[in-house]
């Protein structure tokens, strides 16, 4: 029954043109005349429109195409490349060129950061300068290739590859600085970031070297986390609850690879991190961000290590200014860790037992920057820091001057005086020299090529 119905339908379809052809010639003539009238009417209307002055609401050069109705609708689809096209050898950006300029599916940029320092020969021999081992040198600290963009509608990714001179006169090393993806469409105001990243611990740790508001990373950050700061592999989840005020809560689990503060390097004993930050605006001109962070894991010696952090950043931007006039930044870190200490119980000069001792140490810095002109800023940073494991402390003061010829180029010069307490005599003393008190001239040249995302507050 069903087969016969289909056969009838197919027959009807096949006969339709034949029936049309067999129409009455008079009726065909009528249709042609009607079409001619319609064409004439459209032609007249077009002539009228062309003769009129441009309508006030039309775009200036030509009538713009009507906007597409939906987000998915865009430029008309082009023919996909054939199998032969895909097999043909092509230049690296051949597909990019096919799509037309500006249609690369992610952004890329390069940031170059060159630093130099001049200090005394004594400090150089002792290896105790701000750029330890690189005293009295000018070198590429960080040349960074950044690739970033959307992976798909649900996630974005960032990859940063860095090159820099890591040791005096050594060949420039290249390494993966960051590579992480962010899941953007999770429910309940959450986002997750996975991969290798600079941890969001306090204000300055997340900032790359070339973006720091000073030539060097603050002493306390270098003492407590090492010269590169806290960079880990793992996962962070942030929560921004739907509240009348801004608060961001963050929790993370990482390997604990940072050798200075942790170093257990295993998810069986992971490094756990957390951060809470909030923000206050006092009118349009005054803004303050405060937060606190925690990182807790184990050292390579299987000792517990916890670092607490507090941060604050205030900006005063007079109404209508393109840049803040005053920026005040401060962070404080408190490190609590157990350390293995050899104990000579019987006084014979030999270590009898290894005792675990608690080492609680503190450090902080504060920086004030004044930018009265768009191209010029000056500031000063004061650092005070103990060492997380060793005795002693240091303080330093660093006035600096920054000049931007343009948004993409920056020069900075600073003078830094550092004073280390006598207990540090067993450190900063290579080659029978000493770097307890040091004067340094630091300078920096940074540039950006290509895309660079906007900076958060």
């Amino acid at each position, binding site marked *: 029954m069903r087969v016969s119905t289909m056969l009838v339908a197919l027959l009807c379809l096949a006969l339709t043109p034949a029936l049309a052809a067999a129409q009455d010639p008079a009726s065909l003539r009528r249709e042609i005349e009607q079409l001619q009238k319609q064409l004439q009417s459209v032609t007249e209307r077009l002539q009228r429109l062309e003769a009129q002055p441009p309508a006030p609401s039309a775009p200036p050069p030509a009538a713009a195409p009507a*906007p597409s109705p939906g*987000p998915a609708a865009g430029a008309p689809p082009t023919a996909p490349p054939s199998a032969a096209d895909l097999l043909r050898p092509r230049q690296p950006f051949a597909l990019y060129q096919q799509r037309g300029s500006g249609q690369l599916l992610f952004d890329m940029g390069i940031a170059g950061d060159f630093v130099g320092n001049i200090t005394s020969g004594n400090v150089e021999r002792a290896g105790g300068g701000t750029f330890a081992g690189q005293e009295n040198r000018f070198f590429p600290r960080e040349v960074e290739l950044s690739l970033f963009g959307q992976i798909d*509608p649900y996630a974005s990714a960032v990859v940063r590859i860095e090159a820099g001179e890591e040791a005096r006169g050594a060949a420039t090393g290249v390494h993966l600085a960051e590579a992480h993806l962010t899941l953007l469409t999770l429910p309940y105001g959450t986002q997750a970031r996975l991969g290798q990243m600079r941890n969001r611990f306090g204000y300055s740790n997340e900032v790359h070297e070339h973006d720091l508001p000073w030539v060097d990373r603050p002493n306390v950050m270098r003492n407590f986390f090492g010269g590169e700061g806290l960079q880990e592999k793992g996962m962070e989840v942030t929560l921004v609850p739907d509240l009348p005020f801004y608060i961001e809560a963050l929790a993370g689990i990482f390997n604990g690879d940072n050798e200075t503060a942790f170093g257990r390097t295993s998810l069986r004993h992971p490094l756990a991190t*957390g951060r809470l930050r909030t923000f206050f605006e006092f009118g349009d001109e005054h803004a303050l*961000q405060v937060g606190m962070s925690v990182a807790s894991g184990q050292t390579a010696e299987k000792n517990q290590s916890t670092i*607490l952090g507090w941060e604050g950043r205030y900006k005063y*931007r007079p109404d209508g200014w393109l840049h803040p006039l005053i920026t005040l930044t401060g962070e404080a870190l408190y490190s*609590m860790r157990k350390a293995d200490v050899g104990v000579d119980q019987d006084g014979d000069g030999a270590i009898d037992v290894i005792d675990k001792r608690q080492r609680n140490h503190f450090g902080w810095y504060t920086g004030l920057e004044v930018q009265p002109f768009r191209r010029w800023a000056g500031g000063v940073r004061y650092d005070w820091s103990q060492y997380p494991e060793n005795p002693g402390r240091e303080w330093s003061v660093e006035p600096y001057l920054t000049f931007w010829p*343009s948004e993409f180029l920056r020069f900075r010069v600073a003078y830094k005086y550092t004073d280390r307490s006598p207990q540090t005599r067993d450190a900063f003393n290579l080659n029978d020299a000493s770097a307890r008190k040091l004067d340094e001239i630091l300078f920096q040249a940074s540039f950006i090529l290509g895309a660079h995302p906007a900076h958060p*507050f």
Partner: protein
Amino acid sequence: MLRAFRIALVALAVVGLLAPATPAADKIRVVATIPDLKALTEEVGGKLVDVEALARGNQNAHELEIRPSLMLKLRRADLLIENGLELDSWADVAVQGANNPNIVRGAPGRIDVSRGIQVLEVPSTRVDRSLGDVHPLGNPHYSLDPGMAPIITQNIVDGLGRFAPEHRAEFEKNRQAFLARLDEAMARWTRSLEPIKGARVVVYHPQWIYILTRFGLSQAATLEDRPGIPASPAHLTRVIRQMKDERIKVLIVEPWNDLKLATRVADEAGAKAVVLASMVGGVKGADSYIGAIDHNVNALAQALR
């Protein structure tokens, strides 16, 4: 100390999680990156929308400081309306900090109103930063050309209509009513600027090309050396000489740019520095879309007469 820290951490987290979320309003919560788009969305959305802008009228829309307060606005948004053409690409950073999946790039709640705009000054040759902070996709400052409003509002209707299809007819009705008012104003603006058609002006930042073209005026030079690059003394001298030679009477300056420098240059050249609203709310009295263009047209007509 660790215990105190833990207590504070837990307390803040509990407050954050348990505090009652903002009650869901009946209105569609829209955030626009710039005030022009806020104003136009309010015209189209009427009472059905609650619109906030990220940038203020007197700010430079190219480089906004990404404050967490912007993320707070975006946290609750149903829709984000952006100018596009890389003017407000900073919005991506704010969106990332807002943890709101409705408005991430590619989501239906993200509306780019540059769709369908006939973009001017699209580079036809190789561009790089030696040309300054150029926009590779073309000049993005189309929103203060009233002739672009029909396209922008059509995009807004489409975006709002996708979110609330049951109100689409009302959005379209509001749009038509607004366009009717705009057409009346357009006739007035055209009459006002007709006598000075063909006049040449100098601009501080090259963001006026759309409105100048619309009314038959032209841009002779920019006070910036190149887009986004502050002027060198040699460039200023060249501009002053050109203004004198060509008897240019007006230097247009944005509310966020250096009015003192513009006034000094204009005085040297025997011209007048005129502050126009680079966005709605940029100057006093420019509080609506039509009001902002009224201000700009009147200021230009007065200064060029």
